[in-house]
């Protein structure tokens, strides 16, 4: 696989970023305020903070589901403010996301769910088959490739969601509570996978409430409170 990466490039850069939901002119309260930070290539950040602090909103900005209402946002070396709408899909394909509610497609099998980003990227079907099978084996779902999400437990669905996020070997991986439905052993196993990907160069932002996990795997933190960065 060819990964385009300028060495030492900034994967994520925010400069005075603010976000409020609602239409322009009808400005609701800002859910994110004056965020300024940078994540370099291969960087790892825990995203911490109480519920409602803006973790999910910040992740939405980073996976390009929202555009900032203020400030400058740069993702994978591209300034988002100046980017047209049709320039976003190409960037999104280089970002892996584990959603808190998994967001699997209910009518597709585990295999087809994981294969989705590869197929969207136009990978040949042979490679899709090999990559998807490998990752599903790795997360322990090798025997459940044909199961639909409804037939899987919460933990299994979460592992499918994780597989879908990492199968493209993204340049940037974002995860919202990726261990929420996993037991301790599975959570540790997931962390090993994430560290391995990180070592290979994937930048990461992982939002979590799991303090034990954070203390066992110390790394730089982004601590949010009331939409502001406190660390």
């Amino acid at each position, binding site marked *: 696989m060819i990964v385009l990466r300028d060495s030492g490039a900034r994967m994520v850069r925010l400069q005075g970023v603010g976000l409020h939901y609602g239409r322009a002119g009808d400005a609701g309260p800002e859910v994110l305020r004056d965020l300024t930070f940078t994540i370099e290539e291969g960087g790892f950040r825990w995203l911490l903070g109480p519920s409602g602090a803006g973790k999910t909103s910040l992740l939405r900005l980073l*996976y*390009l*589901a*929202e*555009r900032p209402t203020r400030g400058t946002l740069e993702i994978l070396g591209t300034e988002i403010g100046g980017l047209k*709408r*049709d320039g*976003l*899909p*190409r*960037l*999104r*394909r280089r*970002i892996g*996301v584990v959603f808190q509610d998994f*967001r699997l*497609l209910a*009518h*597709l099998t585990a295999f*087809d769910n994981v294969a*989705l*980003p590869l*197929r*969207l*990227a*136009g990978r040949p*079907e042979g490679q899709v088959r090999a990559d998807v099978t490998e990752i599903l084996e790795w997360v322990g779902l090798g025997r459940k490739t044909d199961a639909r999400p409804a037939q899987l437990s919460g933990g299994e669905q979460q592992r499918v969601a994780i597989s*879908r996020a990492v199968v493209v070997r993204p340049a940037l991986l974002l995860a919202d509570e990726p261990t929420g439905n996993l037991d301790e052993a599975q959570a540790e196993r997931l962390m090993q996978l994430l560290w391995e990907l990180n070592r290979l160069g994937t930048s990461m932002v992982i939002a979590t409430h799991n303090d034990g996990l954070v203390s066992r795997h110390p790394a730089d933190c982004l601590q949010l409170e009331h939409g502001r960065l406190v660390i």
Partner: protein
Amino acid sequence: MSDRRRETRFRRGYDDLGLRRALSDRILPLLVAAMAFLAALAAAGAVAASSLALHWQEGAGASLTVQVPRPDEFAESGGTRMDAALAVLRDTPGIAAAQPLTQAQLRDLLKPWLGSQAALPALPLPGVVAVRLASAGADLQEAANRLSAAAPGSLLEAHEVWRNRLSALARSLQACAFVALLVVGSVAVAVIAIATRAGLSARREAIEIVHLLGATDGYIARRFAARATRLAGTGGLIGAVAALPVLLGLAVLSAPFAGWADPDHIALGQALPPALWATLPSLPLAAAVIGWLTAQTTVRRWLRRLP
């Protein structure tokens, strides 16, 4: 390979957006089939009207007929009344030819009204003279006056007036048929747009997920358009096939007026005018094109709401 081609290359039957259920394969084809059926009838109307108009224009342009009652009685001039009328007509400037119809021609002329077996001699038929004009400017009023004098009771029928009236009628019929086609097409667009929007609502979550995973608007629109094209094309095909027996039935009913020698033995290929044979297969094509365009436009417009 281009992005577009790579994106659309999939395993057969792979339905990532779940459109097989979101865009039902029952209602949409059925509605489009009804539209196609109506379109076929409208097209038949347009073709019939235009061929009638053409027929009248060719047949009735520079000609007129003269009726001479009691043609075989003697006129004041000495000959029969028919001879007297012919003499007047041939003497009139601007008339190129004046030819009395034979009994056989008269029978042909009357066949649609009296049937081919009618015993003509039993009826007091007038003599009929077919007159071909050399130019449109012949003084027909003068000719009519002289005819009345030579063979009283003779009628000179200029076709020009009737031709104009019939042409106007045919043109109006054609216009109505085209308006009907336009309306049917617009309703088809509306039906497909509504079905597509319903499909978008039903699959909103799947679309958002695929969108966040990096699907382009074009990719999502193509998935919808492919489905809508298939369903609309199927509907168009059903409608066209359903319209065929109806059109053939109408053609057989109108056969005696269209000059077919033997209405009971008509080759299928000649039963309908070529324009109509071309129209029928183009209905599924048109439905498919309308389906593709409508779905593309509807989906792309809807997707603008996503970031």
